[in-house]
């Protein structure tokens, strides 16, 4: 039995080496994807394009503007005294936020009256508007407090002490969304590429007629499946390692855990993903439909039900239950733990057990769908 599995694995490796398409799917596409995702996927919104209509033109208003710019959250694109220009810039999409400083602003401040600054936000891009609004609140708290401090000092008084919240954020102190996203990207790439790689193998044998030849020999279905999976497991793991290295070295993703933990979780997730591809390939028996179905079957669950982008906790109950059988969800949880927390195996062993069980189930399914006979 071992010799037959070995013969299958050896033969499959030769196919891989001789077919540049396989190597292309295996290595070029993942590198391309990690670069693309790494640079493009960034939910941290700063440098919000801002327009300011300054009708006061005083020292106070200029100070306000320079403080606003210094924070790094807002980038002043338009500075004018005409309200119409702000309106136009908002409509043209050149700015997301328009601020209005009315004339008399500095007088109101010096008299100790409540000065008003108007703000208009572009709600068509709700993400930017939301962050912009939050940043404005933060900025104004700080700004108000500085004015207060100044007037107290004018009268030689100490400003009153106010309680402050001092949060300490663990694992990702700067709350960079990129740190949160990169493990998800590694999961997505591994899932999709693995399934696509194996989706061609069984179908190719059916199309060529070599499957019939294999069926006429004593080789058993599970030997065919295992033999085919072995070389692809090596490729799939290399892929994940390439993605992980790129994430760490190019995008500065912290790596707190152990490489061994990464390898072993990756091993079982890869086999599961490869098994999905080979099962689809065995059922459809034709290369083109097999690669298309594999793409969808591997991408949708790992995109939607893995906590990658969309939090599962806010989904309706049926979808939450459905997500329970998605291996990408468990792998992502483990990867985030390994990369960002560095806590070991004890932190995720239930997820790990699920992954191994899934792995055996999918291999059994693939073997069942590789018939000992044809019709």
């Amino acid at each position, binding site marked *: 039995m071992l*010799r*037959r599995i*070995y*013969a*299958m694995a*050896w*033969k499959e490796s*030769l*196919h891989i080496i*001789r*077919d540049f398409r396989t190597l292309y799917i295996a290595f070029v596409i993942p590198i391309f994807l990690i670069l693309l995702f790494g640079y493009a996927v960034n939910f941290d919104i700063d440098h919000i394009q801002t327009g300011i209509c300054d009708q006061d033109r005083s020292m106070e208003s200029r100070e306000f503007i320079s403080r606003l710019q210094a924070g790094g959250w807002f980038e002043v694109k338009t500075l004018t005294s005409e309200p119409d220009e702000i309106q136009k810039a908002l409509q043209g999409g050149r700015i997301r936020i328009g601020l209005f400083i009315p004339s008399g602003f500095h007088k109101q401040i010096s008299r100790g009256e409540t000065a008003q600054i108007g703000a208009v936000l572009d709600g068509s891009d709700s993400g930017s508007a939301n962050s912009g609004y939050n940043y404005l609140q933060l900025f104004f708290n700080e700004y108000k407090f500085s004015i207060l401090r100044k007037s107290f000092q004018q009268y030689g008084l100490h400003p009153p002490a106010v309680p402050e919240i001092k949060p300490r954020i663990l694992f990702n102190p700067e709350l960079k969304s990129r740190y949160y996203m990169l493990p998800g990207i590694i999961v997505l790439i591994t899932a999709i590429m693995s399934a696509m790689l194996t989706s061609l193998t069984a179908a190719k044998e059916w199309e*060529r*007629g*070599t499957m*019939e*030849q*294999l*069926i*006429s*020999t*004593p*080789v058993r279905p599970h030997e065919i499946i295992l033999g085919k999976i072995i070389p692809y497991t090596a490729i799939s793991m290399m892929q994940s390692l390439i993605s992980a290295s790129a994430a760490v070295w190019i995008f500065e993703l912290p790596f707190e855990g152990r490489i061994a933990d990464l390898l072993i979780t990756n091993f079982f997730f890869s086999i599961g993903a490869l098994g999905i591809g080979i099962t689809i390939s065995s059922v459809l028996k034709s290369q083109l439909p097999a690669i298309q179905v594999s793409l969808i079957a591997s991408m949708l669950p790992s995109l939607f039900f893995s906590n990658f982008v969309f939090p599962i906790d806010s989904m309706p109950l049926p979808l939450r239950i459905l997500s329970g059988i998605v291996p990408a969800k468990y792998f992502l949880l483990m990867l985030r733990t390994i990369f960002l927390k560095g806590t070991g195996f004890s932190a995720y062993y239930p997820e790990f057990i699920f992954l191994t069980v899934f792995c055996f189930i999918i291999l059994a399914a693939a073997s069942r769908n590789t018939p*000992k*006979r*044809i*019709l």
Partner: protein
Amino acid sequence: MNKAVEVSSLIKRYGDFYAVNNISFSVEKGEIFGFLGANGAGKSTTIKILCGITSPTSGKASVAGFDAAEQSGRIKEKIGYMSQKFTLYDDLTVEENIRFFAGIRNIAGDRLSQKMKEVLELSELEGKEKQITRELPGGWKQKLALGCSILHEPEILFLDEPTAGVDPQARRVFWEIIFSLQKKGTTVFITSHYMDEVEQCSRIALMHRGNIAALQSPEDLKKDIIPGTILNLQCRSPLTLSADLRKISEIRRIDPLGRGFHIILNDRSDETLQSAKSKISKILENSGIKEDVLETVPAGLEDVFVYLIGSLEEKTDAA
């Protein structure tokens, strides 16, 4: 256990279509057994059932003493199978293909190197071990495929149209291999379109629409099946004559062949022959065509095949 293959009342049905319709036959050990028939006659299906690749709908088939429906695993160890499709891996080299099929058959070590040498010698591919199989000419591919299917020295070798599309020279070599296997005691079960090939078999089963229409040695088939004398008529523009020839009462069938006809008479008596001959000459004279050849010929396998299928078709048409 005396027979290599034993089949009784075997049926394979796909929906309403009977690919194999209740056939029974047996194959002796060491025989070269031929399957002759048109495409879709059920030859390949029967072979696939015997090899344990396809399961029968009903009936019994035993191969090398094992039941094809229940013990296909055991059968697969005893047989070799090569189909009309090219079944090697064409992106592997000659040597890699041999190595792979040997691995699947648990052949390794010294036995592997010995078998490797044998197969290369047999298929005349020595010196081409490193060549990618895709680049080999068709005949060599088939020889290599044959070599890969006999690595494990099977008791019974099933060949499904192994020489389709192969040039005559390569076909001759192919048959030399088959004869040498037979000498070593291998039973060979072969299907083919080529009459000259099937003629080499010890017995032939003629399949038609899922049934076995005849099963005899080639000599007996030629002796027994056709009831009348065969006249070979070769002449210029023979097609214009066929309507007139059909009116002659002594003639049973006319089959186009070459630049003329094979005419089968009602019986083998001399009177029938003489009267038919004179009537044919008269028709030729009237139409101003001079015959190149008009002679009696012994029945060939092709005559038998065409006659048998023709009369079976007439029966189905009548019914």
